[in-house]
């Protein structure tokens, strides 16, 4: 079964392997499983989108600017994403930081930029509570899509689906015993693909400065170095193969910024970095 829904700003493809002799009831049931997968992924979007003013992230960005030291209770999923983000932040020495929202071209006030801090300034407490110590401009754009894919995969596992794949605009994860060929789209404007390799039971994510430039805002790339606030302006593709999609998604940013395939954090997370010229 193959499905595709516009979601998370891109197209989310879902594939569930079906037996050639599948009966209509099982087919209908698989479609229902697909609906549940998409529902869970939509929930991630509703919780974590920084564009949506009613999301938890938008709320806590606003709250952090009112009362210093405010304690905020998060949805367990958002809390989990914060835990992962802080761990990747720590392991990469601050190279991955989802507190770079203030550098975004759409951020309202340039003079406020340096006052806002990143993910490292948040204290994670018990019972899904967090303490916001400083002004924040969190943007989970570099991690939430990968996390959404993992949530979708969890649904498939709970339904005991054997072989399946979710691809959210290039952040993809595969479960089961089938080896899948992975291709890298070489250009947005040409139909050319680079064969990257075969993946079984794992995830791939890619960040690239080739596409996705915000042309309306002067052609900036969307990858930002959190230490300098500067955009990454090269013409390379940075891919990570990892056990989970959330880790793959985060680490593509660290790879794009440091361009160091020998960085120790890749091994820590069981990840394989790939730079394509």
């Amino acid at each position: 079964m193959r499905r595709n829904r516009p979601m998370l700003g891109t197209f989310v493809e879902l594939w569930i392997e079906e037996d050639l002799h599948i009966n209509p009831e099982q087919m209908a049931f698989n479609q229902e499983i697909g609906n549940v997968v998409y529902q869970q992924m939509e929930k991630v979007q509703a919780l974590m989108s920084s564009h949506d003013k009613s999301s938890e992230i938008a709320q806590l960005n606003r709250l952090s600017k009112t009362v210093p030291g405010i304690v905020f209770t998060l949805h367990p999923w958002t809390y989990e994403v914060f835990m992962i983000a802080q761990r990747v932040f720590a392991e990469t020495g601050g190279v991955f930081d989802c507190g770079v929202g203030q550098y975004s071209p759409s951020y309202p006030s340039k003079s406020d930029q340096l006052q806002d801090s990143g993910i490292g300034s948040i204290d994670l407490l018990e019972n899904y509570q967090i303490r916001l110590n400083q002004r924040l401009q969190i943007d989970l754009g570099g991690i939430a899509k990968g996390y959404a894919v993992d949530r979708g995969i969890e649904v498939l596992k709970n339904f005991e689906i054997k072989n399946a794949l979710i691809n959210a605009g290039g952040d993809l994860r595969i479960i089961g015993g089938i080896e899948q060929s992975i291709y890298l789209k070489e250009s947005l404007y040409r139909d050319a693909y680079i064969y990257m390799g075969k993946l079984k039971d794992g995830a791939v994510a890619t960040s690239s400065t080739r596409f996705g430039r915000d042309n309306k805002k002067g052609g900036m790339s969307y990858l930002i170095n959190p230490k300098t606030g500067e955009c990454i302006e090269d013409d390379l593709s940075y891919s990570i193969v990892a056990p989970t999609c959330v880790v793959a998604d985060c680490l593509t940013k660290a790879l794009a910024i440091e361009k160091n395939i020998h960085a120790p954090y890749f091994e820590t997370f069981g990840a394989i970095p790939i730079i394509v010229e």
Partner: protein
Amino acid sequence: MQWHSPSYLAVICLVTTAPLGQVFAKQYLSVDEVKQVIFSGEVFTKIDIEVPELIKEKMRKESGVRYAYQQKHIWKSSQGSWLLIDEVVGKHEMITYAVGINNKGQIHGVEILEYNESYGEQIREKKWLEQFKGRAATEPLRFNQEIKNITGATLSSKHVTNGVQRLMVLYREYLSRT
């Protein structure tokens, strides 16, 4: 996790690029399937109506979608739900999508039926094809089967979002009043 790359090199150079010498379509759901996926158990009847030019103009203005509305698929269920199927042009490709609207006038589901990665003009251009001559691919590319696991390009779904908007204008201004 298991990963086999052609060389295990961390840096892959651009030697295995292959062009897609054909237009291929990705089929996800059929018209019959999408009804069940969005509105399980409801029975739909096809509605044949000619959408007035005035309404079409409103749809164009509010959504910004200039590609003409084809009005081929308008379905209504006995429970008062609507299922509308439409096409928009993405960056370069045709996308067929369905919008389910429940009897309260709310969006109940959006699904992609078909995604045609047709890069028409560029593919037919000889010069473009020639640049790939002599390049060896390490892996046979059986596109309809193999090319499905693509990383690296976040295709924006904005055109579909605009398309959904135009169908909601159609519903608000016309279908809900008939």
